[in-house]
């Protein structure tokens, strides 16, 4: 049979494809419906939090931080309750990571505060003297892309039925109507911050990346 296959490239390729596709069919498909069900009480990300998640992706925090607490006592002691599948239901993409050069962040909102993040992102060594994490000062001047975050909310509402309210519509008017709510949420973050330039920017209706990122960090609980 193999000699015959090696002279018939078409059937050879079909054979290879069937053999490699087999595992995916059996291992991945069965879990699909089950694993995407949210835990009770889980709310979709706000637009500001989504924009913060975008900053998390843009600066690739995932390169050094995980968001997955494994079922070991040493992990639950250090980071909090073990992670559950349903908590990730609105995570597109998932951000579990594969490397902990820094600590896990899945429940960082439980034990770090806005002002801690502000100091830490400006200069990590100021709060953790031996830290090898770089400073992310550019997040204090770059603006978060809240319009794209809103577009993402509308998209997941329409395509994946993520439960956002009726006011989330794919029109510029709907976005302009929602924008003040995003600014208001940003102000609740800057109320606990000390950087005057960041506070002024938010007053003027511009949200620096750091504000969105902290909103996202505080949400991780």
């Amino acid at each position: 049979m193999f000699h015959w296959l090696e002279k018939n490239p078409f059937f050879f390729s079909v054979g290879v494809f069937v053999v490699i596709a087999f595992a995916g069919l059996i291992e991945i498909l069965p879990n699909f419906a089950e694993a995407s069900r949210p835990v009770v009480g889980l709310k979709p990300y706000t637009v500001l939090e989504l924009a913060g998640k975008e900053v998390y992706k843009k600066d690739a925090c995932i390169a050094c931080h995980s968001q997955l607490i494994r079922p070991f006592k040493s992990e639950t002691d250090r980071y909090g309750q073990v992670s559950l599948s349903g908590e990730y239901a609105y995570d597109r993409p998932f951000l579990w990571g594969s490397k902990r050069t820094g600590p896990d962040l899945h429940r960082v909102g439980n034990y770090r505060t806005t002002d801690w993040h502000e100091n830490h992102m400006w200069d990590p060594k100021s709060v953790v003297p031996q830290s090898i994490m770089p400073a992310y000062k550019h997040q204090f001047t770059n603006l978060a892309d809240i319009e794209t975050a809103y577009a993402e909310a509308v998209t997941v509402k329409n395509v994946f039925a993520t439960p956002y309210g009726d006011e989330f519509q794919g029109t510029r008017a709907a976005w302009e109507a929602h924008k003040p709510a995003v600014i208001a949420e940003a102000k609740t973050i800057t109320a606990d911050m000390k950087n005057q330039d960041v506070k002024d920017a938010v007053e003027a209706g511009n949200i620096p990346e750091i504000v969105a990122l902290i909103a996202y960090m505080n949400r991780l609980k």
Partner: protein
Amino acid sequence: MQSNAALEYDYSVAKLFTYTTILFGILGMIIGTLIAAQMAFPELNYLIGEYGTFSRLRPVHTNTVIFGFTVSGVFATFYYVGQRVLKVSMAESKFLMFIGKLHFWIYFVGALFATVTLLLGYSQSKEYAQYEWPADVAVVVLWVLWGISIFGLIGIRREKTLYISMWYYIATFLGVAMLYLFNNMAVPTYFLSGGLGDIMHSVSMYSGTNDALVQWWYGHNAVAFGFTVPIVAMIYYFLPKESGQAIYSYKLSLLSFWGLMFVYLWAGSHHLLYSTVPDWMQTMGSVFSIVLILPSWGSAINMLLTMKGEWNQLTENPLIKFMVLASTFYMLSTLEGPIQAIKSVNAIAHFTDWIPGHVHDGVLGWVVFMIMAGLFHMAPRMFKREIYSKKLLETQFWLQTTAVVLYFTSMWIAGITQGMMWRAVDEYGNLMYSFIDTVAVLHPYYAIRALSGVLYLTGFLMFAYNMIKTMTSSRELTEEPQFRSPMA
């Protein structure tokens, strides 16, 4: 053309991909060495503003060495090996020649575009699948073009039986096509929100645990079909060609090929042990990872036994040395991987530096060594000149071997140290170390790893210099060498 006439193979596309292999290799390894150094000396994060931080550069490093260096090497060797084992020249078909060149240029422009988008921070944040959707579209186009080249050449072949290397190239094509497509399924938000926001942005079709499953089915097997399958294609061609020895066993190559195809895809879930994916999937991942030793070692042993009775070549020909060491590192890393996939070992190893350690003994020792050996074998035949310097080759070999050993030993120690410290408890059951203690203790190992990066990069620059000299100013050859590559 008569089938018994000597064929004049056309290497113009193979040459183009050879240049990009060298170019992306240098770029990817410079960035890799820089980010390794950043972990030991964090001040190095601030060389080029926000674009120079470890986190922004790490995906640039991985994507440049995977989709830049390795994939270029796969294409370069395919456009060389494909013609020769199918006994047909690219020059015989104007159409295939056009497709080949188009393939190259779309690849090259696409790779530059994708690299710039990563530096700017456009990222899906899925490992080795960071490219946003416009770059993904470019990848699909160039992959289809490669498919046309493969099956086009097969369509006009004179040698009716596909040689082992062709099996592996075909599998690479099919495997990556399937994995890449499914893992990168995403919805561009611009088009579904009435034109709001950034046109580059997209959102994954899968969420949470599902996304994790698809991602590591992809992530693990992108390694399989990028770093294993096509590299095995290379060694099955270049080792017998360079040594003048026939493959030791046809049956062993059959067993390892079909075994590898079937088993590899199951193993992806070993990246998700102790996560929220169902237990039975985790166990399947563990079990099949162990089974994977068989087909992996099958190929490697087949290669080593091919040298039976001819081991003297190891001392005489540095290219044989490269290839034998490559298959030895392949054995090491395909034993190490399954060990890490055992659940109790994984509990310690996961999230630590042992994992990049494992990746790098595979890629530095196996992938890069094999690609360099392949290109060195091709150079005298493509450029009709002898290899510029044997001495340089020998020095490069020992320099890079030392570098690989330093890399994996330091990362083994670092990883196991960190894994043990994370779980250490005192007599009352309290955690003994704060997280930062486990970072500070790793400094010496990070410094050793950075040094190993410098050594390996230096070796690669020697390879690049040797290749460029071979292309341009080495002694010309009057006829094509049959087996052993001539070198000065």
